């Protein structure tokens, strides 16, 4: 078992982070935070491992990043979405360290927020705007096409600009909203990183699925690239699918991007 698991003991059946291949990428340590109510932490860790990196579990209550090179704030229902999705988690001890490191003037920490993680990042104001209930007011799980609008961020550099990918989307509070000025700035500065294609599944402004901060080290998105990292277990596995049987690993590029970027840096 990788040494990195010792940071805190995750109660598991089985092991999601077997030893990673011995190469440069394996030296990249990517922290994955667990809050009470986090659901997709094991999946995010698996995605890091499949991309070639080393996942490091981080515990919400510990103000310590354990020397990780990047952080993923995974999806789920932290604190049961009570008060407001992401609002309580944003105040966790570990998040104060994430915010500090993400805003460092030199070598700012790459941070990815997925779904509830995106909500948490907006609550910490690392990213602007916020998420409200889907316009149809129901939980929705679907295979969603996204356009990579900006491939200059830490988390999208392995994609082509304008490339379309299909990853699962699953949420209840996924409607991205921001005031007109913020939207204008996001568009003008090319900070809309992912945009919904074909179907806007929740009423998000400007079909926005994911955005970045000014420097491109912090990215948040509602859909789940960590659920599209292995053929057979991604979008091709279900639904009245239009994704081919051997597809389903489009999300892996998000995780290889940050590893390659950090190794190259």
């Amino acid at each position: 078992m990788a040494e990195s698991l010792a940071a805190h003991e995750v109660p598991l059946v089985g092991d999601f982070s077997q030893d990673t291949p011995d190469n440069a990428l394996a030296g990249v340590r990517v922290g994955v935070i667990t809050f009470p109510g986090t659901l997709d932490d094991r999946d995010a860790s698996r995605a890091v491992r499949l991309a070639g990196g080393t996942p490091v579990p981080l515990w919400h209550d510990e103000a310590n990043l354990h020397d990780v090179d990047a952080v993923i704030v995974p999806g789920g229902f932290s604190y049961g979405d009570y008060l407001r999705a992401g609002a309580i988690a944003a105040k966790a001890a570990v998040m104060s360290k994430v915010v500090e490191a993400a805003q460092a003037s030199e070598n700012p920490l790459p941070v990815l927020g997925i779904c509830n993680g995106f909500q948490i990042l907006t609550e910490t104001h690392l990213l602007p705007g916020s998420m409200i209930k889907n316009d149809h007011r129901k939980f929705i799980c679907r295979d969603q096409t996204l356009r990579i609008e900006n491939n200059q961020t830490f988390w999208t550099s392995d994609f082509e600009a304008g490339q379309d990918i299909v990853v699962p989307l699953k949420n209840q509070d996924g409607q991205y909203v921001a005031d007109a000025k913020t939207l204008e700035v996001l568009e003008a500065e090319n900070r809309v990183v992912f945009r919904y294609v074909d179907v806007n599944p929740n009423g998000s402004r400007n079909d926005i699925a994911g955005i970045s901060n000014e420097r491109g080290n912090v990215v948040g998105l509602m859909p789940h690239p960590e659920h599209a990292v292995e053929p057979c277990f991604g979008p091709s596995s279900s639904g009245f699918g239009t994704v081919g049987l051997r597809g389903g690993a489009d999300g892996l590029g998000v995780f290889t991007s940050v590893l390659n970027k950090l190794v190259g840096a």
Partner: protein
Amino acid sequence: MSEKKFNLDTVEHAAATPDTELPWAELGLKENEFEDVKKILGRRPTAAELAMYSVMWSEHCSYKSSKVHLKQFGAKVTDEMKKDLMVGIGENAGVTNIGNGWAVTFKIESHNHPSYVEPYQGAATGVGGIVRDIISMGARPVAVMDPLRFGAIDHPDTARVLPGVVSGVGGYGNSLGLPNIGGEVEFDECYQANPLVNALAVGIMRHEDIRTANASGTGNKVILFGARTGGDGIGGASVLASESFDDTKPSKRPAVQVGDPFAEKVLIECCLELFKGSVVEGIQDLGAAGISCATSELASNGDGGMHVDLTKVLLRDPTLTPGEILMSESQERMMAVVTPANLNRFEEIMEKWDVEYSVLGEVTGSGRLTIEWEGEIIVDVDPKTVAHDGPTYERPYARPAWQDELQADKFIGSSADDARPTGAELGEAIKAFMAAPNMCSKSWITNQYDRYVQGNTALSMPDDSGVIRVDEETGLGVALATDSNPRFTRLDPYEGAKASLAEAYRNVATVGARPVAVSDCLNFGSPEDPDVMWQFAEAVRGIADGCMELGVPVTGGNVSLYNQTGGKAINPTPVVAMMGVMDDVTRRTPSGWAPEHDGQALYLLGTTGDELDGSEWARYKGHLGGLPPKVDLAAEKLLGDMLVNMSRDGMIDAAHDVSAGGLAAALVEGCLRFGVGARVGLGEVAERDGVDTFTLLFSESLGRVVVSVPRSEEVRFKDMCTARNYPFARIGVVDAESNALAIQGEADIDLDELREAHEGTLARHFGEVAPS
């Protein structure tokens, strides 16, 4: 607290006041049962004891009407069937060895009545309850499934019940991080005012992590942890008012429990950490009958006794009486037995996860379950008499007088069999049929469930089974299907139950998994009605005989009786959940052909007889009568074996079971799975089977599967079918160019039009969500 809130009915007081009137009838006990309680105790029960016996001896907890029949599940088994069974019937859930040191536990339960009263919370706590059963075995829950049955789709009350149930299943399961990988949805007016909400959960563990519910080791601590105890779910709360002094206390409490999935998610992780550190000796979830059930079951499964101080229970509502505390069904609670040496470690884990707990008492050598309240003994019983020695009834049953008439009312020749469409009409008819409530796509529902979380879902709806990876290194995993055909079961309960079993077996094999274990949820009307009791007895006999023939053991399940409104029972609904094992889930076979399968040959395995009675076409035309299709379990077993081998050896790339809606539905669903068309010619096979094209398309004969075979594999495929002597016929070819299902000489059905018809029905009735 110095002020006494109620007259405490102590054991001493009960012995001294034998003639005190007790509300046993209001609590649901029959007079003979109350007399039995007095005989067991040698005195009248205290109010608290009465509460315990009444809930534990209820139909729901004691299986008093059903257990004489359920015994067959334990009797009709061979040693061969038991070889992989690690924990059998009687524990919270059965456990099956799937190899490589892995074990799987799964169980299906009902939450029918609460879901009618309060659809959202009823369905949500149904998921919560079954998941806690799985945790209690020491397993990490990895998936859920929900077979749901509602009244007529256009009945106003269905518009209240269905969206609430679906939101409840999703709201709870999604928040727990459990993929929902399948189930069933049926609409039938027999479920009006009595919807069926069944919930299945499956969990995985290493062999050494299996836990059971027993309290052993004198001096070990008994600890209640999780949510606080409140007044929710106390069915008979009002009758316990006789205990109360105080008129100002809250009296009307909800009889339906309220769920908090966040608390349960934390409880799951916290329990897994307890198991991992071997911190608990025994564990039991709190479900029906709450603390009454947990204490009496833990104590009677152990080797000694138990003493509990009820004043130590952490309460949400401080006005609760001891009887109410014992009966409360507040959710998200667990009870553990912990050695004094492990107590510190236990406390650390509780603190890490911010879970509240209190040490209620300890395991004793007395052989008795004693409960005290403010220093006085209010319960002193032999725990086995509460948990296991409830009453047993041999309810009278008899074949209903109307059964012959029902069976004589064949579809063929009935007024419903008025027009058998052919040619272009057939195309239109198939489109309309595939939009009917029971044939339409259920994606409106399943798209409100998370099917991806945990990253191990290899298949889910609309495929024949849900498939979950267990071992990431080898790809070892399980497939699960739930099936019931209540219409067949009404026509012939014995054969109908067997047909439901056969379908579940076939669905598991169709995705490529070897069926290994069964759990069942038996939903029936009132056991006091001899007609219903006959249906029940016949269905149980059918499942037990069928399991023996298929060589697959029943590992547990649940019985739900009294499903009837106004004297009219539901169609007998035995839901069979089948679990299968796959060595490598990446070899799973989906239910339709993909673009890369263009040009592959489509084969139909099995033969079609004139079996339209009880079919979906008959329902579509408003008819229910006749005899269900013949069940040949030896053939099903052979077919299953072939499908598993074909999948493993790469002989087939798609396979879809032919069941509800017949071959017509199987072909449509096969095309729509990936939006890829097909050309079929049915003349030859119709001639072989001696039926017309219409019958070939809509009959629901069992033992049939449509498969897509790569050209390079056709010889091997045919050789295998020939060698096994299983009927097969080439019926067509995958046609990725056409965007149509073309039935030669009859109709060309455009896939876009088909999809629109098939997908649109639920949204039209219950409102648009985002397109699927």
